[in-house]
């Protein structure tokens, strides 16, 4: 029952600036997922909320309260660690009750809460066991139970599912979604699993090197990546990037941009805006690459690798613009060594500035943006 806010937060470890400047609001009751490559500062961000790390400058607010100097136990948060961090010498019951005992809740209340939570998470039969007698999935549940039983106003999850196998991960993911609906508490959730980010989040925060790259609904980030980093990070297989030359106007007389590359000319209409006569990066998702027969007009290419995934097939194609990936239906006829034409629809592609990495989509207004707000993919 609280929003979390970072105001001009920086975090250094010695000389190493891990978070150069963080401004972020996690609205009350929202499920916010932090994604980003390893080492980008996701865990550090979470630990700053928990109070396990202290900010080097700036403020962290929980609710209306500035918590910079508030001890972890007084921040009204609960955290689920990637390693679970269950107390090995205590039974499941004691693990769940530990925080409540320390807070001196009445015994009946403790019993009631532990029973409620163990029912929700299906831990009833495990209450007498110790952590080493539990499977990975069961430990995970206990770790979540220990957080839930405290009824905090903010939950923090640090890659809680990364130690589970694929099947269990799917199950727990759906369970976490259900829990959020039931508890309707603010959740900050760190992962580098895109599926978790896309399916769980009300809002995704994409981070790179300690900076927020884009904040938005999961589909926003997928459909309208704000910069090259987000475009490349969200979506599997990764978006194709093609170096192009941008020029103005076209035969059709539109005011928009036209891009050229070796063997490729694409009229983008007026979705994008940017300086002409310069280089830019054209982005196309593999699912938006239409693989046609050699008679069609489009970028000429040859099928190099064909990977059937079941319902769909991933194709790796060699073209004059370099290697590209396409994702096609499983019945698609293209075979290895086939010559094909690649057709891209102007309203499905993305265009980025080469230097700043920013999207040239008219939806984004960069006029007020600080030059540092967005980094380029290296």
């Amino acid at each position, binding site marked *: 029952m609280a929003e979390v806010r970072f105001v001009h937060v920086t975090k250094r470890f010695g000389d190493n600036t891990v978070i150069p400047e963080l401004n972020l609001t996690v609205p009350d009751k929202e499920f916010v997922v932090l994604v980003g490559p390893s080492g980008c500062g996701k865990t550090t961000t979470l630990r700053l909320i*928990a*109070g*396990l790390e202290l900010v080097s400058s700036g403020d962290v607010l929980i609710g209306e309260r500035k918590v910079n100097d508030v*001890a*972890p*136990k007084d921040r009204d*948060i*609960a*955290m689920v*660690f*990637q*390693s*679970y*961090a*269950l*107390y*090995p*010498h205590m039974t499941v019951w004691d693990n769940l009750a*530990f*925080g409540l005992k*320390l*807070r001196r809740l009445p015994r009946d209340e403790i019993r009631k809460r532990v029973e409620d939570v163990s029912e929700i998470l299906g831990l009833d039969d495990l209450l007498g066991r*110790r*952590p*080493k*007698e*539990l499977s*990975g999935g069961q*430990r995970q549940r206990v770790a979540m139970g*220990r957080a839930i039983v*405290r009824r905090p106003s903010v939950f923090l999850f640090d890659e809680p599912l990364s*130690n589970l196998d694929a099947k269990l991960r799917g199950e727990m993911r759906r369970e976490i979604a259900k829990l959020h609906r039931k508890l309707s508490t603010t959740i900050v959730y760190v992962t580098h699993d895109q599926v978790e980010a896309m399916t769980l989040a009300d809002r995704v925060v994409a981070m790179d090197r300690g900076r927020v790259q884009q904040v938005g609904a999961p589909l926003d980030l997928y459909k309208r990546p704000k910069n090259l980093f987000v475009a490349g990070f969200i979506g599997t297989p990764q978006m194709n990037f093609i170096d192009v030359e941008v020029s103005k106007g076209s035969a059709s007389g539109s005011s928009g941009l036209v891009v050229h590359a070796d063997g490729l000319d694409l009229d983008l209409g007026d979705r994008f805006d940017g300086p002409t006569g310069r280089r830019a990066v054209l982005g196309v998702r593999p699912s938006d690459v239409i693989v046609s027969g050699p008679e069609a007009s489009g970028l000429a290419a040859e099928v190099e690798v064909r990977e059937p995934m079941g319902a769909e097939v991933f194709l790796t194609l060699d073209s004059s613009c370099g290697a590209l990936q396409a994702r096609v239906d499983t019945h698609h006829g293209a075979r290895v060594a086939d010559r094909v034409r690649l057709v891209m629809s102007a309203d499905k592609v993305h265009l980025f500035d080469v230097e700043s990495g920013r999207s040239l989509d008219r939806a984004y207004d960069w006029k007020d943006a600080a030059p540092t707000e967005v980094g380029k993919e290296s």
Partner: protein
Amino acid sequence: MMKRKLATRLLTHLFLMTFTLATLFPVLLVIRKSLTPGDSFRLSLNPIPTEVTSQHYKKVVTARDFDGHWLFGRQVLNSLVVAGLTTIFGVFLAATAAYAFSRFRFPGQKSGMAMFLVVQMFPGTLLLIPLYVILDKLGLLNSVAGLVLVYSTTAIPFCVWMLKGYFDTIPKELEEAARIDGASRMGLFWHVVLPLSRPAIAVTALFSFMTAWNEYILAETFLNDEAAYTLPVVLQHFVGDKSAQWGAFAAGAILVSIPVMALFYVLQRHLVSGLTAGGVKG
């Protein structure tokens, strides 16, 4: 193939039995001595007593001073109190110090640990005179408190090293989880760190107890009242300059080792590994 296996096995066992016997032999000789009448020190390698008497044990246990006060009971009590207090005091201080050395960053952290190691390198007898002077100034000569103080200070460096090494292996996340759950520093030390450190605590406790229980030179120097003696001093006096009561000495030695064996027996169930298993993964 089978034959060779059997042969190696036999050899291994022969080897082990030889060494076990070699280790136990002196103990058996002491037991024999304590049960054999007379105080002569005849060298016989037969560990089986030919005559049995309890006279030596009686003599040790029923010793009295000039006023007729029972000495042995008093001396056992001295030893128990000194060793017990040394253990409690030493382990408590060592555990708290080791925790600080393991978890906090502070000036002198590295050099502090190094100092403990350096102090360990000097033989205890080297400290005899300075310690005597200090205890004298403090008015603690001839007292239980003085001995406890001295024994604790000699046991603590080893205990700190031992415990710090163990604390370092306890995952940091467990403490972080406890901090979020609402534990204070002291609370998480008490509820999380100590219970998980049982094996190391048991070892250091045993070490402290034995250090104090067996120590002779310092006790002999600092104590001069028979009623204040600890058992090693008592034992030594059976074979002092004036007399050589080897029978009583042997009987006393056996009696003195019983509490240590008992303590070891009690503590050994804590000497298990893998207490932190299951807490964190990865």
